[in-house]
């Protein structure tokens, strides 16, 4: 506590927010700095994947078939683009649901005369949608990993397997953390309702969620589409 009530306001915020002398919420500054550091983490993982790309001695390979004698049996290209395209669409739609959840919390106190307004203003609905779409993405990833292992590609098979599972596994772990985070917001919403004063907490979770989405946008192109 400072001697000046005005400074107290800046330090703690009018309603418990952590505002700094920049006028910005310190938690939001922290989450943007965290996202910046995450950019570098994923850049290092993507770099590793790209450096090792095309240098695997044994199959399966991502975009090329593998025939004897390189592989014991003939193997198809392992990446399943239709399935991954569907999971990409799911993650993009989860980002839309997330921004609508944030808008619903921010505008909770506005009147909602029509059914459309009530649907758009339901933070529970959009948080549920985001969670379900995130879990669906994880389901797609689990299916992909399982099918790869059945087709003979594990993290120890070749350079492609090692770098691919590390990169997409790290991303999947981030999505899992995001789904759990959104689950906690849902629990709070059911317990006492998310008010406009809680918007900063939803905003921070949303920033993390959208970051996970933009990382997948890069991975989808660099890993899956570029041959």
């Amino acid at each position: 506590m400072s001697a000046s009530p005005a400074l107290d306001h800046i330090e703690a915020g009018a309603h418990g927010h952590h505002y700094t002398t920049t006028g910005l919420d310190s938690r939001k500054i922290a989450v943007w700095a965290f996202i910046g550091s995450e950019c570098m983490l994923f850049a290092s993982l993507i770099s590793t994947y790209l450096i090792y790309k095309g240098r695997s001695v044994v199959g399966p390979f991502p975009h090329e078939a593998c025939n004897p004698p390189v592989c014991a049996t003939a193997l198809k290209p392992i990446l399943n683009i239709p399935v991954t395209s569907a999971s990409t669409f799911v993650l993009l739609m989860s980002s839309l649901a997330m921004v609508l959840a944030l808008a619903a919390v921010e505008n909770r106190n506005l009147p909602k005369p029509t059914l459309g307004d009530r649907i758009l203003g339901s933070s529970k609905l959009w948080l549920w949608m985001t969670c379900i779409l995130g879990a669906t993405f994880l389901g797609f990833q689990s299916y992909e990993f399982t099918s790869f292992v059945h087709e003979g590609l594990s993290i120890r098979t070749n350079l492609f397997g090692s770098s691919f599972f590390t990169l997409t596994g790290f991303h999947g772990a981030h999505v899992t953390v995001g789904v759990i985070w959104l689950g906690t917001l849902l629990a709070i919403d059911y317990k006492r309702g998310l008010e406009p004063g809680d918007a900063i907490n939803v905003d921070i979770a949303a920033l993390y969620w959208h970051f996970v989405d933009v990382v997948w946008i890069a991975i989808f192109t660099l890993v899956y589409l570029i041959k």
Partner: protein
Amino acid sequence: MAHNDSAPRGGHGAEQAHGAAGAPHAAAHDAHAHPTWKQYKWVAVILTAITVVEVWVYYIPAFTRTKLFVPSLLIMSAVKFAIVVLFYMHLKYDARLFRALFTGPLIIAVVTLISLMFLFGHLAVRLGS
């Protein structure tokens, strides 16, 4: 549906509701007006359309063999990345400090990635004829 499409999604409602009490940080949130539902919907449509085009060109063997294939995919991916960051992460509307905190490390990351591609021979600059 008449769901207030034209109304900007105001930053954090609490700041607005608290009025003068929130003055020290109100300035920072003035620039925090979010896009409308219509804009969010169109952003989603554009992102989906770009993804469809990306997957579509992947299945055109004649195009995948050209030199345009990789640059076109990278450009489409960069556009999607930018749209999500600017509109869904509200970087277009938010404080400059947030932009700096994101773009600074992003530039370092991209430059490092490109440098490593040159270092490991995945990219090369051809000198002379």
